[in-house]
């Protein structure tokens, strides 16, 4: 039983990371109709930026982490202004190739730094363990869950209670009407990319103490696609919950099923979900709510 709870909590923690990446993907997809294949690379750049600020510039972590998130947000906004804007209104393939190419350039740039290409690093965030009775939790896992909850609450507040957040939502719902009403749609696209990049960077910094920082840590973003599909592909809370669900199922599969099955479970779930619940697992609830 104890092992079960232990695996469950680590599944929730890694699921939060999947969920955050999925959320960043859905945020960008909803707002700009752009399919981003570079969220994993933004995640990796976020973790490395935090690491560089901490190790090279000697900034304390509480300062380095937000600075890294901010830097990646600016990077996202810049890329939107320079290149990604051109993919709006084009077929999905254009955005897929464009973001894949930009992601390769980001990964290649990091790989060109010898110190980054060859080693794995630990960020000393929450490196110890928490003991609650007989249950021993990795502090990093608890930290991931707490930060995810705070970030989700902040995003929800932003989308509901601030003017900018509501305009961004309006532009995601119907860019044409929003433009007719005089809202700055193009600026909202930039904002969506900045936010999406920032959320990916947060996911990278949260993942840093769990899997360490290395060049290929962005591959975790592949799991964000099943998470987004489970959440219905256009729902922000759905993406986050889909990620947590995926993380738990994957962890339990690792505990109960033969070796190797764990790695396939997310993608098998994606295909089954498309067959049985094409609108996402929460579709029934949403349909009832709208009646």
């Amino acid at each position, binding site marked *: 039983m104890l092992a079960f709870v232990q695996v469950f909590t680590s599944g929730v923690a890694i699921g939060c990371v999947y969920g955050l990446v999925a959320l960043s993907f859905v945020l960008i997809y909803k707002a700009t109709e752009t399919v981003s294949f570079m969220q994993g690379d933004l995640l990796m750049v976020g973790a490395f930026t935090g690491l560089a600020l901490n190790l090279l510039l000697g900034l304390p972590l509480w300062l380095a982490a937000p600075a890294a998130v901010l830097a990646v947000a600016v990077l996202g906004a810049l890329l939107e202004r320079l290149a990604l804007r051109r993919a709006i209104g084009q077929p999905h*393939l254009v955005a897929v190739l464009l973001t894949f*190419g930009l992601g390769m350039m980001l990964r290649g740039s990091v790989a*060109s730094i010898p110190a980054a290409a060859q080693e794995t690093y630990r960020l000393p965030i929450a490196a110890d363990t928490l003991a609650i009775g007989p249950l021993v939790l990795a502090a990093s896992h608890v930290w991931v869950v707490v930060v995810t909850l705070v970030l989700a609450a902040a995003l929800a507040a932003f989308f509901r209670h601030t003017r900018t957040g509501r305009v961004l939502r309006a532009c995601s719902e119907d860019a044409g009407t929003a433009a007719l009403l005089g809202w700055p749609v193009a600026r909202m696209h930039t904002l969506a990319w900045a936010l999406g990049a920032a959320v990916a960077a947060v996911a990278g910094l949260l993942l840093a103490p769990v899997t360490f920082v290395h060049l290929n840590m962005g591959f975790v973003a*592949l799991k964000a696609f099943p998470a987004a599909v489970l959440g219905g592909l256009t729902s922000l809370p759905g993406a986050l919950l889909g990620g947590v669900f995926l993380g738990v199922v994957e962890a339990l599969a690792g505990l109960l099923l033969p070796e190797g099955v764990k790695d396939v479970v997310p*993608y098998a779930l994606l295909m089954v979900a498309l067959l049985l619940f094409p609108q996402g697992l929460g579709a029934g609830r949403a349909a009832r709510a709208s009646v």
Partner: protein
Amino acid sequence: MRTDPAAAARQAVRAGLPWLLVVLVAVALLGVDYALGKATLVLTYAIAGLGVVVVVGQAGQIALGQAALVALGAYTQAVLVRHGLPAPLAIPAAVLAGALGGVLASLPARRLGGLYFGMSTLAFALIVEEGLARWESVTHGAAGMAVPGFEVFGWRADSTLAQALVSLAALLIALAVCRRLLALHHGRAWRAVRDDEAAAAACGIAPAAVKMQAFLVGGALSGLAGALYAHWIGFISPEQFGLVFSFELLMLAFIGGARRLMGAVWGALVIVAIPPTIALLRDALPGDWARAAGLEMVVFGAVIVAVVLLRPSGLTGRS
């Protein structure tokens, strides 16, 4: 279409001339053997690229895991030939494996279309890659396996010329079949679904079935390419058929122009030429930074970005 022999001949010359030029320049620059080896690769890539052209350019759907279908063809061919089946007899099985893979990969999204095809084909590709690495009794797992040469009734295609000729023959057959399909009601249905799904449905075309046909044909072509690729490379392992290969094939179709069948051939030429060009650049550039491991990735990414931004309809398309 009118069949004026003189005009047809002129057209054939006009179509063939650039290729003659490409071949002559390649032979002059690279030497016969190297050029033939690369030509074999171009022709094989072009067959796989045709599969993407059918799915992406003709039917207007998106396929993010085409490399897995190439892998299915390659592994089917390799396993059957290793068990003593003659290569030409194994090829239909490889084609079938690719076609079946295409259907399976697209099945969950067949009524949803759009991005959902991207998701399901991507998931299928990742499952196949993992499966090939885990099913060690048949595929030898991540260690990969050697593939015997291409042999027909005692004649072995072990010279680069023979390999290039076999690939050329396969490509010409694939092109002819595709051309025929595009002229028939299949191709018209694909284009109708691509241009306006609702209108196509109103005309009595079943979009889900039509899309699945496109994935079936695309998968079959990828399977054929995989079967040949396995022979020419001589050694296959799961990681050769990863996400990067899938994106190379997408880019191939995009660069060549996915609206035309010949786009696959032009795109294949560019894709195969990129790595040696980067290697040449690397040697020509002074200083240490050119030796950095990430340069290739940066350049490859930059080529994709540049093509997408500068020539959104590809090299053969009108922009």
